[in-house]
C-alpha cells in the first residue's frame, strides 16, 4: 500500500514536471516573436542583415525609430487611430449601453421587439458588397465618419450588457422614476455607474477592435487621407521594400543610413503593439471578467 501510493506520487510528480515544461515552452513560443522583433528594432540595419540576433541587439541603433517618428505621416496616422478609438469606443458604448438598458426595462412593451431586431443582425447580414454599395450611396467612403457610424451598435455587446443590467435590482431605477427622472437621466446617472464593470469590459473589446482594424480602412477610405496607424505602417513598409528592390544602393545608403527593411519592419511592429501591451493589465482585469460573466449567464 505504502509503495503503491509512493509510486503514484512519483508518476504524478513526473507528470507535473512534464506539464510545467510544456507550458513553459508554450509561453516561450507566444512571447518570443516580440522579443526577437524588439531586439531587431534596436539594432543597426546593415548589421542585422547578417543574422544571428535572437534576444538582444548586437549593434545598438535608434535609426529605425528615428525615421518613424520624424515622419509626420506617421504622427498623423497615430492621430487618426487615437481619434478613431476614442470616438468609436465612446459612441458605441453610449448607444449600445442605452439599448441594453432599454431592453432590460421590464415594464417596456417594446423590449422583446427591440431585442429581436438587433439579435437577428448577429446571424444575418448583407455581406461585404451590399454594405460597400451602401457606404458609397451614403457618401461615407473617404470620410472619418465611416469609422464610427456603422459600428454604433453591436448586438453581441448588447447581449452581454443587457444580461448584466437586467440582474440589477429594479428598485434602483424605480425610485428614480418616482422622483420624476427621465430615462436618459437614469441611464446616465444610475445605469452607467452601477454597471461599470461590464461597460469597462466592453469598452476594452471595442477599443482593441478599433485600434486593430485594417480591412475597413482600405475598403472604405481608399484615398489614404484617413489612414490609421496600422494601414500607414503597412504602406510604409511596402514602399521601403520597393525601394530596396530597385537596388539603387546609392540612394539606399543615403536616404536610409543604418536602416534596413528588416529593422524598420521590426520597429513599426513594436510601435503598433506597445499600446496594446500598455492596456493589457486593464484588459485582463475587466475583459476576462466580462467573458466569464457572459458565459455564466449563458
Amino acid at each position, binding site marked *: 500500500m505504502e509503495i503503491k501510493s509512493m509510486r*503514484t506520487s512519483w*508518476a504524478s510528480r513526473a*507528470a*507535473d514536471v512534464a*506539464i*510545467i515544461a510544456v*507550458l513553459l515552452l*508554450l*509561453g516561450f*513560443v*507566444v512571447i518570443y*516573436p*516580440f522579443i526577437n*522583433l524588439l531586439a531587431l528594432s534596436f539594432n543597426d540595419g546593415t548589421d542585422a542583415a547578417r*543574422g*544571428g540576433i535572437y534576444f538582444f541587439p548586437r549593434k545598438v541603433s535608434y535609426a529605425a525609430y528615428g525615421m518613424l517618428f520624424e515622419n509626420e505621416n506617421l504622427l498623423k496616422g497615430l492621430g487618426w487611430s487615437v481619434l478613431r478609438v476614442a470616438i468609436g469606443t465612446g459612441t458605441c458604448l453610449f*448607444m449600445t449601453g*442605452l*439599448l441594453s438598458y*432599454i431592453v432590460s426595462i421590464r*415594464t417596456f*412593451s*417594446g423590449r422583446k421587439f*427591440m431585442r429581436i*431586431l*438587433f439579435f437577428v*443582425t448577429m446571424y*444575418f*447580414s*448583407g*455581406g*461585404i*458588397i*451590399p*454594405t460597400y*454599395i*451602401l457606404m458609397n450611396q451614403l457618401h461615407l467612403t473617404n470620410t472619418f465618419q465611416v469609422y464610427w*457610424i*456603422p459600428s454604433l*451598435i453591436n448586438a453581441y455587446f448588447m447581449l452581454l450588457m443587457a444580461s448584466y443590467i437586467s440582474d440589477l435590482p429594479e428598485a434602483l431605477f424605480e425610485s428614480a*422614476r418616482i422622483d420624476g427622472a*427621465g430615462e*436618459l437621466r437614469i441611464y446616465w446617472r444610475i445605469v452607467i455607474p452601477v454597471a461599470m464593470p461590464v461597460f469597462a469590459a466592453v469598452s476594452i473589446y471595442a477599443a482593441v477592435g478599433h485600434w486593430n482594424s*485594417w*480591412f475597413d480602412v482600405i*475598403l472604405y477610405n481608399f484615398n489614404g487621407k484617413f489612414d490609421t496607424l496600422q*494601414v500607414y*505602417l503597412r504602406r510604409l*513598409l511596402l514602399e521601403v521594400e520597393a525601394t530596396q528592390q530597385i537596388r539603387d544602393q546609392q540612394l539606399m545608403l543615403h536616404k536610409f543610413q543604418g536602416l534596413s527593411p*528588416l529593422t524598420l*519592419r521590426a520597429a513599426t*511592429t513594436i510601435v*503598433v*503593439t506597445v499600446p*496594446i*501591451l500598455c492596456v493589457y493589465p486593464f484588459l*485582463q482585469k475587466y475583459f*476576462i471578467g466580462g*467573458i466569464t460573466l457572459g*458565459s455564466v449567464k449563458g
Partner: protein
Amino acid sequence: MAAVWKRVRRERQIWLLCLPMIVWVLMFSYYPMYGLLISFQNYVPGHSMFSNWVGFDNFIRFFHEPNFLQIMRNTLVISGLNLLFGFPAPILLALLLNEVKGRAFKKTIQSLSYIPYFISWVVVANILITMLGSDGVLNDILIKLGFIDEPLAFLTNGNYFWGILVSSNVWKDMGFSAIIYLSAMAGIDKEQYEAGRVDGLGRFGLIRHITVPGIRSTAVLLFILAIGGILNAGFEQQLLIGNPLTQDHYEVIDTYVYRFGVQLGNYSYGTAVGLMKSLIGLVLVFIANRLSKRYMESSIF
C-alpha cells in the same frame, strides 16, 4: 387612471429613444440584406435596383470559373486544418493549465497565452515576414544547425502557405479560446473529484472521467459553431500574409469575393458568391446542431 397615463408617457419617452436606433439598424443592417437582391441582377452602380434581372446566372457562373476548384480546395483545406489543429489546441491547453497547482505560475502562463489574440493581423503578418524571411531568425537557426544550406523561401513558396497560416491561427487564438474551457472546468463540482479519488481514480482517470465530461457540452457547442464557419477560412490574414507568388494557395472564397467583386467591380457576381457561401454555412450549422442533438444530447438551439 393617472398611473396608466404616466406609463404611456414614459413609454413614449422610451420609444423616442428607440427611434434613432431603429433607423440605424434598418439602414446599416437590414438594407444591405435587401441589397442581396442584386445577386439576381446585373447591377450597375447608379442604376435602379430593379432592372436587369438575370435569375441564377451569377450563381451558375461561379461553378464555371477556371479557378473554381482551386478556390474551393483552398477554402476547405485551410479551414479543415484550422479545425483539426485549432479546435483541440485550446482544450489541451486548458487541461494542462487545470493540472497546475501553483496559482502564480498558472496565472502567468495564462496571461501570456492570450496576448496574441489582441494583436492585429497586420502585426502578425509583420512578425511572420520578419522571422520567416530569408534573413529571419528561423532560416538563421536552420542554417546554423546544418539542416539547410540556403534559406528556405517560406513566404514565397505556396507549399508552406497553409502550414504558416494554420500555425499562426492556432498561435493567435489558442490562449483566448482556452479561457472558455477553463471557466467550464472551474464550474465542475469539487466533490466529484473527491468521490473519484475515493473510487480509486488516478490523475488521468480523474481527467478522463470527470474533467473531460465536464467540458463536453462547451466543446460540442463550439464545434457546431466551427462547422457552421467551415467556409470562413479567414480573410485579413490571407491578404496580409499572402502575396502574388502564393496566391494559388491562399485564394479563398472571401478573398475572391473581395478581389473580383469589389476591386474589379463585379458587384452582382461577387454578392452571389458571398450569398451562396453564407447559405451553405447556415445549412451546415443546422445539420451539425441536429446531429449533436441526436447523438450528444446537447445543442445550441
